[in-house]
């Protein structure tokens, strides 16, 4: 079985170097600020107790008041998984650091979120639309894109 870690266990893995002031504790996921994300991912990928070597899924969610980027990580060595969440406020010029340098698997998934939700991933080597063409206006997966026909 793959065991899902709760936020306290993830904080324990992050160690003393990590400034735990800036995170909210909740049950199954760890909220990380965008500035902290690179730091957190580096620790989760490279320390032996964590070794999250498989980036399962990156999702973007539009909660209208804010956007959320959700990372599902899995460790094939320890057979555990965790969920990281980054909240981004505002409706335009949203920027989130890219995790491409830790997991190459972020390549297409981050491009997809930029294409459909308009969250720009800084540090991604090829940040451009993936499904829609370059001249397309807007980001269709946003809740305010348009009233879709029923």
């Amino acid at each position, binding site marked *: *079985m793959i065991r899902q870690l709760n936020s306290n266990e993830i904080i324990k893995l992050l160690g003393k170097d990590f400034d735990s002031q800036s995170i909210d504790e909740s049950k199954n996921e760890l909220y990380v600020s965008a500035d902290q994300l690179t730091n957190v991912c580096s620790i989760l990928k490279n320390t032996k107790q964590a070794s999250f070597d498989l980036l399962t899924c990156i999702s973007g969610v539009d909660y209208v008041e804010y956007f959320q980027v959700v990372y599902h990580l899995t460790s094939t060595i320890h057979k555990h998984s965790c969920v990281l969440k980054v909240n981004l406020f505002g409706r335009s010029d949203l920027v989130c650091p890219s995790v491409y340098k830790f997991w190459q698997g972020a390549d297409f998934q981050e491009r997809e979120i930029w294409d459909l939700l308009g969250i720009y991933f800084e540090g991604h080597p090829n940040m451009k639309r993936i499904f829609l063409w370059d001249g397309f206006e807007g980001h269709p997966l946003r809740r305010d894109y348009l009233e879709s026909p029923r």
Partner: protein
Amino acid sequence: MNSELMTVNFGPQHPSTHGVFRLRITLDGETVVGLEPVFGYLHRGSEKLAEERTFTQVITLTDRMDYTSAMTNNQAYVLSCEKLMEVTPPVRAQYLRVISAELSRIASHLIGTGFLINDLGAFITPLMYCFRERERILELFEMLCGARITLTYMRVGGVFQDTPAEFWPALDSFLTDMEFHLDEYESLLTGNEILLSRTVGVSSITTDQALNASITGPILRATGFDWDLRTVDPYEVYNRVNFEVPTGENGDNYDRYLVRIKEMRQSLSIIKQCVEQIEPGKVRLDLPFLIRPDSGEAYGRVESPKGELGFYLISDGSISPYRCKVRPPSLINLTLLNEMIVGWKVADMIVTLGSLDFNMGEVDR
């Protein structure tokens, strides 16, 4: 001798791209020196559509993602819904789901194998051998739910209906014949000199490369790494059956082919054990027509024929999902295209695309 570089659009309408997939390749003579995949020709906005449909209606959208194995798509979605609602379907339904998902896996691998051999230049004949058996699986699906490709067989809390009486004898005779047919493919292909010389050592990747690029499924297992969600994170009744996870050694095109052939044998064994173990009973929970899961979120995943297929569902308590994010294995498995193809000849590129066995319906959604 120096030659001028040339950029060629490969696809979107090319038989070996298996759908509408375009590659912008830069060629030095016949060697590929640069490559950029272009997606989106089959983008239908399934995730956006799902936000406007009820939880049950979304099942029909999942059929149209990886249309070669609709059962596993259904399974991944309904498992996520059940995780969200914290319900467990009846045991008979779980067995029926596993049987149909494994049939789907065989059908998908038959397409993967057939088209790989087709891309190698063995025009149509081996493909038709594979389609002959696939046809029988589609007939079994027709008995289960009346449809052949877009099945919508599974429901949240079970399956659509119990099996008709004629299903079990037909399944039995298929299982017996399929063993023979797999031997037949292997006698024609596995030691075949043309297949060996065209695929062994071509486009190989290492386990570290594959894991770092989030590649799952037969492509990851062909590198020699034992990672199958059916064993590492068993869902439904996979912990009640015994099977092996076939792995390769070199992660090249040949190993990917071999892993798929071996997986089909394991799937047959899983179905046989399920047929022995299954008992009469209910096939569906009594859930309301319009499901309203409590606010929350769930990530459910299954081992689809292409790799890890996941659904990240968020509910706000209404009748349709607030967000329905798909983790498409076909798309993510293409991350390493550059590493696999650059440096090889155009003819090898076509074989590699065949051995990756991706499905554009799932890549673009």
